[in-house]
């Protein structure tokens, strides 16, 4: 296994994009029991899954355990798994369900049972780090930060999936278990909100 693949440089991005194009074939090959293909899937999607998982649950070890269990279950049930055209959203949604179930369970122990849809979705916008790291805090940037803070968690999740993971609206809808129209709306509302409150207030 090569260790340099995951670093974020241009070659790597190109490499990942190439791999993602081949993803449906890799998925098929994995279903037929090809372990190399399975390893490729893990290599390809592990960082995205960890990234996504950490938005729900800041406990890195718990997220990692969930991802491992998920892959193990996937390997065991490979013959029964559907032909997926977009493995990434399939994996993200599986992780989302698993994590929410897991978080729900631990919460059940700690507190009274709650509605499972009540989850946190934390994203660190680059701008926040920028604000933390610079002495000069532009009025502009502070305003943007306020705007971002006013987005709903669903809007945040949708634009995170759209812009960070570059999912299509179909994939976002699938992952968030909503319809495509709602997915489009969430992203557009968020952009419009920022536009109206930050760019043209």
């Amino acid at each position: 296994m090569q260790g340099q693949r995951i670093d974020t440089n241009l070659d790597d991005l190109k490499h990942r994009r190439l791999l993602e194009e081949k993803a449906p074939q890799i998925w098929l090959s994995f279903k037929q029991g090809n372990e190399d293909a399975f390893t490729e899937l893990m290599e390809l999607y592990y960082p995205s899954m960890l990234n996504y998982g950490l938005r729900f649950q800041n406990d890195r070890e718990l997220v990692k355990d969930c991802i491992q269990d998920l892959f193990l279950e996937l390997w065991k049930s490979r013959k029964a798994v559907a032909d997926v055209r977009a493995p990434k959203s399939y994996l993200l949604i599986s992780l989302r369900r698993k994590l929410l179930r897991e978080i729900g369970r631990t919460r059940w122990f700690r507190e009274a049972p709650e509605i499972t849809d009540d989850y946190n979705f934390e994203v660190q916008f680059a701008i926040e780090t920028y604000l933390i790291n610079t002495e000069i805090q532009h009025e502009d940037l502070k305003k943007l930060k306020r705007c971002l803070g006013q987005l709903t968690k669903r809007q945040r999740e949708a634009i995170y999936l759209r812009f960070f993971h570059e999912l299509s609206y179909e994939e976002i809808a699938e992952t968030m278990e909503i319809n495509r129209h709602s997915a489009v709306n969430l992203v557009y509302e968020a952009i419009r909100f920022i536009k109206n409150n930050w760019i043209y207030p």
Partner: protein
Amino acid sequence: MKNYDQYTLEDFVQDFYFRRWVLGKLDPKDTFWETWCKENPEKELLIQEASSMVIGLSYEPEVVKSEEIFAAISRVQKRIHKRALFSRKWFYYAAAAIVPTASLLVLWLVGNSQTEELTVAEISSDVRWEVNEGREVVPLTLSDGSTVQLGPGSRLGYTNGFGITDRFVWLEGEAYFEVIKNTESPFIVNSHNVLTKVLGTTFHVRAYSQDENVSISVTSGKVTVQKKTVKDAEEMDPGPELILTPNQQAVVSRKNDKIIKTLIETPAIIKVPEQHRHFIFNDTPISEVFQTLEEAYGIPIAFDDEKLAKCNLTAQLSNEDLFDKLDLICETIQASYQVTDGQIVIRGAGCE
């Protein structure tokens, strides 16, 4: 080509190509956007606003180090293989019980110098050694179900990955192996950089440090033998493979890396031939006689079919060992034989 002239702020923010340019993830050779901006100066403000928004809506990716990913992958792989081995194991045991176990004898006679004996295994700390300092044979069971009878003054090394990632052992001294068959994972014995690879069989290895040669002999089954040069020892890049079939023997010189393929001293019958079960021949064509021997001992016999076409044999050869049989046959048909490259080559002028 997309109609970027008509794009609104929202459209630009959403466009993956545009986003990549803003976020510096585009190939530096791709100058599309620089050109486009020059050609559309009236859009400058819009592009600026869209850019700020792309940057504003970008995320701090959680840094995932490659080591973290590979550690996770290898944990998943280990868990997969644990399960696979567990469920497959019973199949192997069953197969071993039903199929008559192929047996294979490997004999290593190893030279006396112990100077360059520090192999990768010994340097590497994660190799575990089973050492037999006593005078009795010590039985061991490996995690893949294979058993080893470890001889006196011998030691056997393996890593934690044995049975999971590979089936690789190091041996010094003498041992008798009974290897569970696994066609996907060959069992490899490394002894003084001579590798013997089997897919599943029983064999004997002798590798004490008194002798100059390592010799490997096979009574049945199939192994490959390779000599690693000292230079390659760390790269695990062995030389060409020598395939040993039943009753063949490889003599590997530890000094000059030469491997000679020959036969063991007393080849054993590995299979009762379908015809002439007791080696009773009655005016039998010589080609049929040789075919019977080939089948029984699993050793290729080469001869000139045309020259020996008229030779027949009437003899009863049930009690003789192979070489005695050959002596008698050759005497009868006025021929001679030679062992070359693990085969028997018959030379004769033919019969009248």
